[in-house]
């Protein structure tokens, strides 16, 4: 009897164990991969992505018009040779899926708020935030608009290419991460491409300071707020040079007092610290300034650096065009690149295209609100967040006239709605912008190709072999009154919202400026004479470095342009230390501080990985902020607020040393700017010495090392602790996990010469040698040459894999 019982028990235990190891049973907060399925050497993790190892692969695919070749070179750059655009886009989809399938799917899931379904309870909050922000709603609207274009089907042959790859996969071929998180690729759709695009939009245009500014205005009062947070510097280097004549009527002029502001604090703290370090450089010089007599175009977008990399390098050749550059995996076309005639690229525009409206509920159920005197009802969108190893979470998101209710206030009767340009159904075929750019031969064609662009707004930089250089602030912007959209506004009147768009031809733009160069680094788009109100987050230092250099340099070679992209000089450090130098004498400092202070004041302001002064200045700036803005620090504990910008603090130190904000409330004395500066210098040198004594590194590259994380942040798949030059205020804008994600220099000579590098590799497979092979070259400031090989045979020497796609008969 006991024998039989034991037998049955063993049987039972075995079956349970199999189920557990197969992933049918899991528990805990971080579900383990199903070990049996995962470790099994026949089709588990040991056999991932085997198809990239096959030298010659021939596939039959439905719907192709002609034969397409994808040749991978010795860096695994995909060179696509197709007989027409549709087939080329199909092949782009295939190639991106072949190398980046998990990344594409992960980004689409992240945008849609579906990560918890593969990762587990850890990502619920992130998912809910994406749902409340209406990311999927935005993507659905995008597809709704795109489908109205008669080019939708042909451009989204890309989707079929992705699916042709997915359908060719067996369990053994799946990328590693699918095995780790135990799921299977699902069919790719235009909606997923839209989601991927919206994820990028969120990074670039998903920010506003309306809540922060509303809090500050409430607590500081109008006078102090305006004084500490001015929107313009005395001297600015806008993207569109100062002195440009804007000949159209002004729409500004409605003063702050008459705006319908929500004048209560929003004390819920949301801690959305995203987007720090996001920015980009782009510049172009005309032939008059270059060593070749022809334009040179440069672009280095600074994004969150990741593995697999943000960008996929691709060369697309058809009888109509021959283009090379980088694409955003999941989306057709080349976003930054060049062809035999032109080069193009983008940097982000900081203009605020996301406004917050306070919706006051008229019923206790919070489903009704007033708009223009009429009671309106919200629409519901039921969001189900599936959670691996847990129960689904149901969230009902309310949609108002303005957009989704995305945040609550502490006032029980009011919630906040989001009006975001990226929610709008597009009325153009904006998805074709980066497809059409590939075939442009001059600025006229490029301008036409990019007119349809809506969001996220970008500075579109351009240079052509025929000599033209141009820059256009491109995107759709609401025409705003002065101060409009800077704060949370009342949502009870539709006039408080956006009514008119700035006509495209009134967006700031310039072609062939007399100074001989175009440049953008996320600074203000235009000077104060631009008739529309511009507000947002703008860069204050990098742009000066770029403009100074380009103004002073002549007969510039492409190599000099590459070197300039590595420049680690910081105007922020230089501005500050020059002022500090004049205020602080060595006698003001304790014994033992003198030598270090001398080092600081004689520093060349270069953020080199092995330099120590960047660390000291970092400590010093933090102390200055802490000691000056103690009043705002107190607010920060319970509210979303921002400190005044660095340039404003320095301006106040210089011009208003007795300003009341310099008095630190936590001390008994009354301090002025000089006291604060001396105190901060002392404290930071103390901290600097203390770090040294405690054996901590004071080398910039070790103090703030760069981490390039895998999408899932798993250290095993990431590259950690890279000692790299640069800081966010330098042209080489490398920071904690951000930096130049693609450095490109294109010399538009008779035979166009391209050079570029990015910190990663073409393959998304962590076990591939092409996964992160370019990081070191990138760190050292080295470049690879980019070739517009006219035919597949030209690649015979460095062909590492050839994939032939044949139409299915």
């Amino acid at each position: 009897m006991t024998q039989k019982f034991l037998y049955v028990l063993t049987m039972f235990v075995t079956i349970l164990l199999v189920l557990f190891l197969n992933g049918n049973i899991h528990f805990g907060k971080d579900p383990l991969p199903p070990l049996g399925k995962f470790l099994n050497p026949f089709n588990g993790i040991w056999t991932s992505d085997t198809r990239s190892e096959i030298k010659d692969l021939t596939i039959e695919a439905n719907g192709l018009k002609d034969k397409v070749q994808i040749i991978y070179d010795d860096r695994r750059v995909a060179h696509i040779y197709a007989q027409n655009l549709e087939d080329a886009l199909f092949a782009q989809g295939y190639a991106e899926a072949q190398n980046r399938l998990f990344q594409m799917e992960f980004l689409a899931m992240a945008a849609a708020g579906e990560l918890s379904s593969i990762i587990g309870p850890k990502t619920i909050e992130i998912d809910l935030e994406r749902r409340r922000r209406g990311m999927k709603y935005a993507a659905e609207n995008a597809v709704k608009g795109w489908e109205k274009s008669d080019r939708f089907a042909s451009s989204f042959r890309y989707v079929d290419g992705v699916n042709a790859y997915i359908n060719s996969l067996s369990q053994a071929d799946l990328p590693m991460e699918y095995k780790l998180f135990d799921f299977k690729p699902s069919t790719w759709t235009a909606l997923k491409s839209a989601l991927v695009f919206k994820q990028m939009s969120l990074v670039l245009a998903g920010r506003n300071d309306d809540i922060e500014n509303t809090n500050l205005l409430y607590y500081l009062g109008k006078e102090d707020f305006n004084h500490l947070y001015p929107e313009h510097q005395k001297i600015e280097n806008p993207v569109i040079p100062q002195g440009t004549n804007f000949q159209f009527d002004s729409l500004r002029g409605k003063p702050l007092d008459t705006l319908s502001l929500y004048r209560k604090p929003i004390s819920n703290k949301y801690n959305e610290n995203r987007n720090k370090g996001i920015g980009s450089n782009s510049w172009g010089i005309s032939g008059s300034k270059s060593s070749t007599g022809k334009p040179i175009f440069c672009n280095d977008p600074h994004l969150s650096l990741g593995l697999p990399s943000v960008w996929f390098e691709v060369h697309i050749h058809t009888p109509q065009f021959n283009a090379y550059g980088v694409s955003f995996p999941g989306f057709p076309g080349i976003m930054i690149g060049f062809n035999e005639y032109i080069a193009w690229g983008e940097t982000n525009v900081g203009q605020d295209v996301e406004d917050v409206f306070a919706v006051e509920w008229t019923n206790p159920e919070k489903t009704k609100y007033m708009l223009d005197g009429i009671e309106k009802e919200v629409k519901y969108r039921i969001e189900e967040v599936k959670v691996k190893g847990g129960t689904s979470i149901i969230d009902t998101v309310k949609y108002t006239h303005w957009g989704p209710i995305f945040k609550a206030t502490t006032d029980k009767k009011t919630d906040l709605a989001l009006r975001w340009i990226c929610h709008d159904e597009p009325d153009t075929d904006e998805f074709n912008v980066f497809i059409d750019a590939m075939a442009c031969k001059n600025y006229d064609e490029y301008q036409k190709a990019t007119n349809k662009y809506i969001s996220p707004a970008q500075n579109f930089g351009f240079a052509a072999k025929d000599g033209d250089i141009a820059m256009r602030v491109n995107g759709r912007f609401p025409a705003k009154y002065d101060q409009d959209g800077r704060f949370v506004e009342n949502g009870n009147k539709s006039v408080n919202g956006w009514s008119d768009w700035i006509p495209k031809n009134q967006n700031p733009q310039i072609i062939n400026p007399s100074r001989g160069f175009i440049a953008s680094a996320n600074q203000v788009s235009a000077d104060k004479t631009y008739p529309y109100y511009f507000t947002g987050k703008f860069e204050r230092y990098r742009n000066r470095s770029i403009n100074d250099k380009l103004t002073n340099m002549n007969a510039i070679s492409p190599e000099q342009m590459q070197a300039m992209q590595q420049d680690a000089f910081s105007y922020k450090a230089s501005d500050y230390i020059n002022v500090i130098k004049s205020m602080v004498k060595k006698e003001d400092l304790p014994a033992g501080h003198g030598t270090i202070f001398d080092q600081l004041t004689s520093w060349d302001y270069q953020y080199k990985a092995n330099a120590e002064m960047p660390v000291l200045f970092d400590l010093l700036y933090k102390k200055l902020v802490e000691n000056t803005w103690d009043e705002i620090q107190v607010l920060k504990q319970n509210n979303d607020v921002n400190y005044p910008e660095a340039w404003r603090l320095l301006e106040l130190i210089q011009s208003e040393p007795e300003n009341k904000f310099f008095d630190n409330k936590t001390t008994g004395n009354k301090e002025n700017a000089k006291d604060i500066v001396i105190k901060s210098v002392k404290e930071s040198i103390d901290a600097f010495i203390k770090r040294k004594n405690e054996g901590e590194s004071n080398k910039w590259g070790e103090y703030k090392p760069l981490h390039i994380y895998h999408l899932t942040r798993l250290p095993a798949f990431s590259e950690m602790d890279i000692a790299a030059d640069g800081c966010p205020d330098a042209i080489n804008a490398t920071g904690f996990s951000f930096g130049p994600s693609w450095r490109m220099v294109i010399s538009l000579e008779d035979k166009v010469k391209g050079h570029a590098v990015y910190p990663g590799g073409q393959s998304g497979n962590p076990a591939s040698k092409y996964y992160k092979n370019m990081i070191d070259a990138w760190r050292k400031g080295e470049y690879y040459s980019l070739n517009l090989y006219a035919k597949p045979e030209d690649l015979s020497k460095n062909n590492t894999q050839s994939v032939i796609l044949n139409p299915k008969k």
Partner: protein
Amino acid sequence: MKIVLSIICVILGSLICQYFLPWWIVGLVSFVVCYIFLSNKWAAFGVGLLGVLVLWIVKAYLADQNFDVPVSSLLASLFGQISASAVYFLTGITGGLIGGLGGLLGSWTRALSIQNTSQK
């Protein structure tokens, strides 16, 4: 002799079945092999364990040679800085455990059915 033969049968049977059936088929293969050949339960456990363990380790080792970066080293840091050989062992033991339990149950079933027939 019987034991060596059984191990070979487990290895070959699992190798063939694993190409088109789920990984846990190794348990069933061991079950069948041990049901046919072995009357000693513990020997059967050892046969299943060893057969699948050897097969999985060898196959994992061979698969590892296809990659530029060994999967074993990625797994080693994924599992928190263990050694690559520990990863092979972990792989082998995971499959081996199911193989062993399958074998055990196979010969046990055999014993019980013989018992049943003799009782009748």
